[in-house]
């Protein structure tokens, strides 16, 4: 097969500086995650219905029972309603679902070859991973913000300042959780559904994070262990999510069970450690 005389080599692609290439690629990968999320009906439905169920149905339904009364005697008084109490936790729940869900798409990227396309590009592995994490975290934050829209139904007054602070905490949470999701996804070879994750990772973390019931704030630590079984208190105290939710709760309804800085520290450390693990996995793969 002889080809006709070729036109001389095309003007080569102008050489962008390597940093600019990485940034451009990062933007491209981030944009891809966001576009995919917007087109994913299933995920959107979950993002809307979850807060509505938890806040409007469960929250309003349980609201009247959230009293510290035992046989007419008030054991402790909390300065908020159940609806207010659960509200920040539902924000965290929505972030958690969406983060892990975005991260799990790594499995599909891997199995259906898209990952390969990126791995033969001039992007470094860390750029590829960062694009995925930032994209997933952005989508997760958007889903978390959907919950904030329900604030008025939960009697949570929002000022711009509060929202800004809450978004900051949400971003840290989303980044850490997306990294967690990717670490898990990297270790999974055969995958047949997201349900396993929601039941084995998300819900257990959520239920033991002091999200839907407070560890009685008026009691001392010793007394708490009398009211609640020991194992439960231990679980709650060892669950890192407890502290993240607590920090967010402090921002939104000004109630903390722990030092709010503890939550920030845990999220930052967990985020960095998990991202590093994910990167190491990724380099090896």
């Amino acid at each position, binding site marked *: 097969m002889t080809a006709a005389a070729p036109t001389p080599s095309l003007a080569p692609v102008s050489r962008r500086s390597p940093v600019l290439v990485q940034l451009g690629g990062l933007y491209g990968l981030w944009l891809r995650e966001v576009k995919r999320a917007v087109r994913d009906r299933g995920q959107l439905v979950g993002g809307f219905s979850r807060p509505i169920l938890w806040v409007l149905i469960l929250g309003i339904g349980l609201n009247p029972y959230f009293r510290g009364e035992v046989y007419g005697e008030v054991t402790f008084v909390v300065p908020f309603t159940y609806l207010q109490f659960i509200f920040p936790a539902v924000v965290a729940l929505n972030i958690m679902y969406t983060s892990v869900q975005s991260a799990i798409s790594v499995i599909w990227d891997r199995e259906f070859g898209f990952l390969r396309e990126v791995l033969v590009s001039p992007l470094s592995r860390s750029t590829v991973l960062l694009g995925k994490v930032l994209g997933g975290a952005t989508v997760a934050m958007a889903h978390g913000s959907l919950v904030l829209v329900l604030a008025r139904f939960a009697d949570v007054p929002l000022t711009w300042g509060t929202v800004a602070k809450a978004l900051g905490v949400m971003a840290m949470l989303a980044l850490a959780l997306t990294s967690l999701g990717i670490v898990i996804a990297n270790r999974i070879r055969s995958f*047949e559904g997201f349900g396993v994750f929601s039941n084995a990772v998300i819900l257990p973390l959520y239920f033991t994070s002091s999200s839907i019931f407070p560890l009685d704030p008026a009691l001392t630590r010793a007394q708490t262990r009398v009211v609640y079984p020991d194992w439960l208190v231990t679980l709650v105290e060892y669950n890192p999510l407890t502290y993240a939710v607590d920090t967010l709760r402090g921002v939104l309804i000004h109630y903390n069970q722990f030092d709010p800085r503890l939550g920030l520290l845990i999220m930052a450390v967990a985020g960095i450690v998990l991202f590093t693990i994910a990167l190491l996995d990724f380099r090896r793969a």
Partner: protein
Amino acid sequence: MAEGTAPAPPIRVDAISRRFGRTLALDGVSFEVRDREFFALLGPNGAGKTTLLHILCTVLRPDSGQALIRGLDVVRQPLAARRLLGIVFQEASLDDRLTVRENLDLHGLVFGVPGALRRRRIDEMLALVELTAWADRTTRTLSSGMKRRLEIARALIHDSEILLLDEPTAGLDAQSRERIWSYIRRLRGERHITVLVTTHYIEEVEGCDRVCIVDRGRVLALDAPETLKRTHGGQMLRIVPRGDDDRRAILGRFADRLKGEAGDAILLASDDAFVEAFLADCGRRIRSMTVEIPSLETVFLTLTGRALRDQSAGESERTRAFGRRGGEHTR
């Protein structure tokens, strides 16, 4: 390769070996692809073609040996090498939730093609593979032939000068296959481009400049298709003996002509005179006989003693099957 004088060849592979567990996928493979050549790697599934391609496109490291893309070592300078390569993998690697244009745009971004040039290249490439009308359709809605065309277009967005295609026509119908080849031919006319394809469709490599036949991780022959046919082709008789006695008799009598055995059949080197002599002599001993005229198929038979074989599917088939069934909205 001396710098400054003649440019380094597009692809040079030097004694590459790669082992997966106990199987030696590549066993000291060496060859060089010339500038603007249309080079085909021909071999059965499992011959090591894809492994070799993965090494060339820097996603897999060789255990030993060296692969150079225009003099750039794929292990030591992968990023620079990748800029020169346009790659079409065996399995689709498109994001099927993005549109055709978005897929191309993402590729341009990822390869650092500046905005204006990127848009121009996208339009040119869409026109080349005749997908302009589909630019804003979700990739998911394309047929597999169209997806393959889109991937070829994508591999060229960043002005790659070496195009690597892994089984570009596998799984496509005859018409789509012919179309893919016609695009590649047209591309070679329009651009300064070197093309390396792997395939196990023997009839497709007839139009290549040179064919490299690989099997079990080794290079068996490398030359222009015509030359290969002349040197290794030869006419062959494919004989199925009637029974074991007949088989033994034929094998004993024509041991010097034996080219190989494929299942029941015996392959003998032949020419017109031999056919007559054979029939007169052993006509009663055979169940069937076919005269195979020189073709790349007979070249392959001669070199490997086997016909091109097919193989079973890979590992993560379960997850994929799940995804294809409609899977999960996480996809």
